[in-house]
Every structure is written in C-alpha cells, then in structure tokens.
C-alpha cells in the first residue's frame, strides 16, 4: 500500500526575528549532540555541536542549549534570514558511536 512520511513540524518566522527549534532525546547515555541543516536536494550540513559536559555553546548567529535533566536540546538562530529556510535536525551520538537523528523541523522564513 501507499507509504506516507511523517509530517515535519513547521516553524514559521519573520525575517529578522529569532528562531528557536527544539529537540528531545531519549538516551541519557548520549554525550555528544549535533544540529544539522538540510536544504532541498542536499545532504545534512553541520551547524553546531555540543558535548554533554556543556550547557551552552555559541557560534555565528546560532546558539545550542542542552538541558540534560529533561533531555532537551534547542537551537537558537538570531536575526533569521531567508537563507536559513531549511529542515533542521538534531542528532545524538550514542552507543557504538552511532549517530541517531530526530524527526526534523521545517523552518520557513517570511520576508
């Protein structure tokens, strides 16, 4: 029969506003987390990472926050631009050094 993929959550923001994309993980043994950006027709592109011994890490216009107590990860994008429109995935490095991806969030930036 027909197979339909999961509907990605969508976040729509105005150009210039800040964006916050959230992710929950389940494996408390994960010690390394990565945010990826995936544009249409391309593979995931590394944005920023964080190790479990940190709570916050900043890059250029991006910040990742890690809350190990509730197993929650967020990606903040400052002054969102049209070029930021893409699907964003969080990924966790777990047992066997396997990278496990979340379901993704589609960010749409309105000009």
């Amino acid at each position: 029969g027909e197979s339909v993929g999961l509907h990605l959550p969508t976040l729509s923001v105005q150009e210039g506003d800040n964006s916050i994309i959230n992710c929950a993980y389940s494996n408390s043994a994960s010690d390394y987390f990565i945010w990826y950006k995936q544009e249409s027709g391309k593979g995931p592109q590394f944005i920023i990472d964080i190790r479990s011994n940190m709570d916050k890490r900043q890059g250029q216009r991006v910040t990742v926050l890690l809350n190990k107590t509730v197993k929650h990860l967020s990606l903040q994008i400052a002054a969102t631009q049209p070029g930021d429109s893409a699907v964003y995935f969080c990924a966790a490095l777990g047992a066997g050094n396997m990278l496990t991806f979340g379901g993704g969030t589609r960010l749409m930036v309105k000009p």
Partner: protein
Amino acid sequence: EAGVAQSPRYKIIEKRQSVAFWCNPISGHATLYWYQQILGQGPKLLIQFQNNGVVDDSQLPKDRFSAERLKGVDSTLKIQPAKLEDSAVYLCASSLDHYGYTFGSGTRLTVV
C-alpha cells in the same frame, strides 16, 4: 577539501529490480556510513564501516540490502530486489573521527 561524492543523483526503477549506489568519502576518512532518509523523516543509519570492516549493520535489511567497502575507500550499497518502501534518499557520510561527519548530497531512489 573535496566533499563526499555520491552517484547517481537520481534513480527510478521498477519494483523487484536491482540498484546500486556509489560513494567516495573524503580522503583519509576511515569511517563511512550509509543512511536511508524516507521523505519527511530524519536519516536512519543502515551500515557503518571502519576502513573496510563493518562496525554496525544491525539496521540493514540483509535479505535485500548489501554493502561493501573494498580497499577501505569507496563503497557501494546495493538493493536486490527493490520494494516500493525502499523509495528514499540514500545518504553517504564519512568522518575522520566520530565527531566530524560530512554528508554527501545523496541518491534519490524512486521505486515504481
């Protein structure tokens, strides 16, 4: 630095046919991964190689999927016979260590 190369970019086949995908990782990257990404979902690991040895293939449907990495460089992923539910993007990634993944652009497979 050249990225991870994959070919073909697109492939359309009929169910029960066979298909093969090719990946050339970044030079010097010992670890190579194949992921399957179904539309609307995150990538799912199929198989992980360290040099030419398999590290993990627990998610690979071995009745129809096979992969090899001869000489520890290029890799091929094969599906035989293909099913409708195999329609997806097949992503190859490589890393020097476990903290520096680089993905290719993927091969979009459509099974009709």
